[in-house]
């Protein structure tokens, strides 16, 4: 991705937000997240646009709408002479108490992500996944529970979900999560007491829950915990062999992306007649759209890695 004169940024993940643009338009939360991740001067100028507020650039009207992906995440609606096009960025339609709920934006052209664009991905209820974690913790109180969750969004959501199940012990977090957890707390999302594991002994972690970025699970960092149960919160954990190969003992199918049912329902709900599919498994979703009589094309973006969580 090359830096550009004007960038509309949907949310703060590294594959969507890069530093070096001249002028950035995004939601206030996304701008704050970008600044904390890349520094105050990562773009020349910033322009905060609240959800639902329209802004005109030449003949095109721009507005941002909640995408339900992570704090600050937005879909982009472009209107030109009555024609409406929506770019979803990453989204999910199910409830998430760490960000504004997804909003269906009626449109003519719908550009959708397809990270989990295969019918094998039918994410279960997230609360049930957390119950699995807490049950395992009761059954094996001598072990530490090490949850891999990426630093922006997933980590905070997992912590919030754990709190919602009534767990009120301190939760330990890896240093890489600190800044963003603090930001979520500042924004009124109560994550309860968070602590750093640094300086504590192995014996201090029996039965404790620790959250860290996925890369830390297999790193030297994980050695300080007693016989840890490696858990990983991700939509990919649907696939057992995949969990097994990555050494995950407790897969938690918790995703910040729409699953197959959310994707197909949302496509129908927008009323769009033209669908462009990007960001993942385009083939299956394009095939589906065509099978229900919609015009659909895959849209291959530059600089995309195949997989993210």
């Amino acid at each position: 991705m090359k830096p550009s004169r004007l960038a509309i940024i949907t949310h703060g993940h590294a594959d969507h937000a890069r530093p070096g643009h001249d002028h950035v338009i995004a939601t206030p939360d996304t701008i704050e997240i970008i600044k904390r991740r890349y520094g105050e001067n990562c773009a020349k100028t910033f322009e905060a646009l609240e959800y639902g507020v329209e802004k005109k650039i030449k003949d095109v009207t721009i507005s941002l709408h909640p995408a339900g992906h992570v704090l600050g995440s937005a879909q982009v609606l472009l209107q030109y002479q009555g024609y409406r096009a929506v770019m979803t960025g990453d989204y999910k339609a199910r409830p998430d108490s760490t960000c504004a709920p997804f909003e269906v934006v009626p449109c003519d052209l719908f550009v959708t992500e397809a990270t989990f664009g295969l019918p094998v991905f039918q994410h279960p209820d997230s609360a049930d996944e957390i119950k699995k974690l807490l049950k395992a913790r009761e059954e094996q109180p001598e072990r530490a529970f090490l949850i891999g969750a990426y630093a922006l969004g997933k980590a905070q959501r997992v912590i919030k979900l754990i709190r919602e199940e009534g767990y009120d012990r301190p939760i330990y977090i890896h240093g890489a999560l600190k800044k963003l957890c603090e930001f979520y707390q500042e924004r009124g999302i109560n994550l309860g007491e968070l602590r750093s594991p640094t300086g504590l002994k192995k014996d201090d972690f029996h039965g404790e829950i620790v959250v860290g970025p996925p890369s830390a699970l297999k790193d030297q960092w994980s050695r300080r915990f007693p016989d840890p149960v490696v858990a990983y919160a991700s939509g990919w954990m649907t696939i057992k062999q995949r969990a097994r190969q990555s050494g995950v003992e407790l897969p938690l199918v918790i995703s910040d992306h729409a699953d197959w049912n959310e994707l197909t329902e949302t496509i129908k709900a927008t009323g769009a007649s033209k669908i462009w599919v990007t960001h993942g498994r385009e083939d299956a979703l394009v095939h589906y759209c065509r099978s229900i009589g919609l015009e659909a094309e895959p849209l291959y973006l530059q600089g995309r890695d195949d997989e993210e969580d």
Partner: protein
Amino acid sequence: MKAFAELLEQLILTSSRNKKVDYLAQYFAKTPDPDRGLALAAITRDLSLRHVKSSLVKQNVLERVDPKLFALSYDYVGDLGETVALIWPETVSGELPSVKDFIAFLEDTPKAELPALFSDLMDLATPNERWAMIKMITGGLRVGVSARLAKTALAKYGNVELQEIEEIWHGLTIPYLKLFAWLDGKTDKPQIKHTETFHPLMLSNPVDEIKDFEKLSEADFAAEWKWDGIRVQLVFNEDTQRMFSRTGDDISHTFPDLTESLNGAAVLDGELLVGKDMEPLPFNNLQQRLNRKTIVKKHLKDYPAFVRVYDILFDGEEDLRTLPWQERRARLESWMESHDNKRLSLSELIPFKSWEELKKIREKGAEEQGHEGIMLKRKTSVYEPGRPKGPWYKWKRDARLVDAVLMYAQRGHGKRSSFYSDYTFGVWKGNEIVPIGKAYFGFTDQELKQLDKWVRANTIQRFGPVREVKKELVFEVAFDSAHVSPRHKSGIALRFPRINRIRWDKPAQEAETLDGMQFFVEGQSDS
């Protein structure tokens, strides 16, 4: 079925042996008969369900899911059972049948009605339960549990010795009601026929040349060659003929040439070897016949199996295990004389007067005939399962040592999953280093930490979990023997390689060369 599905998921997701044992033992404790026995049989893959093939599973799902979407999904997931389990669209709430009823449904339902039954079951289940049922139906239950591990879990559950389970295992029938009744303390240990079941083996200890020979008297011991094959137990009578590995796995079907030859009734202990006219070929020839599902005709011809017999545990149903070795040997010799068999030969005794003399024989045998070493058996020893100290010794020829250079390191499993603990090493071939083997033990925990640190600091390339390192660190690798191997780039394969010492001091230039390795290689003339 719900509990069984949970168990399978736990088993597949943990790599720790101990935890698998715990999960199984917990399942046995909370599951009623006959479900637990049927589940056990499914896991050890002794359960075979007729009628149901994976084509039925596939057909059924294609009636509900767009074929193209299914194909793309299958392509991505890579496992038919899991794809179907995940993609299945409907769910209705209701009770799943027990394992027993599930199996009964499958067995009793007429073929034409099977598809409807199958989809009813799928509708009732969660994805994980669907996966468990499909795995059971198609028989592809690979959850990393060996028969031995299952038996270890049974022993733990019933608080009995593993040996006791092994002793009766092959006399038991699915769903193991008698076994569980005994483990639950409700009945006595099940009675079984001795010439139909495996009996735990008596094992030897390595001899310590300096300490032991001082105390041991030559006259008390008999000596035999230590044959370089695999230890087997032949268990047979008029009705059944079986061969078991040392861990009690039934390997009869892999060696039909041998099992079919057995006549009479006895339990014999010996070494499985291959070769024409009962002349043993090197171990890697035998290896070609091990762990094969299908039998290759050419192998039967080129590598006929035979057994060097060295002990007799039962003559008919008569238990000889409490007799001293000397008497058992006499019984064995007369048994062999009265049962002519072209696949069985007696392991000869080596006459000797002094340890010194035997040492020379051992060295000569290793050099000239490639013998692995010598076995010493106390003439008064009874046949005692396990590894008792004192009665039997193995006197292996000295390990071979080679200085090799560390090439790649890979992360270990379980407790070692954050350490680079599996090492591939190689020797010089001209200006490059070619791999000759892989080892993951022989070092202390302290050394492992140092090695892990060294690997991280000296990585030059990464391939997934594998790191290629600078060719600078030398290992002194110990191994039992070297063989020709066309599968390895170096053309050499080592047996039992382990890290003997880490030579932090030695420059890589001084490591061994491939030419130098040829000195160790056995079976060169073999095609």
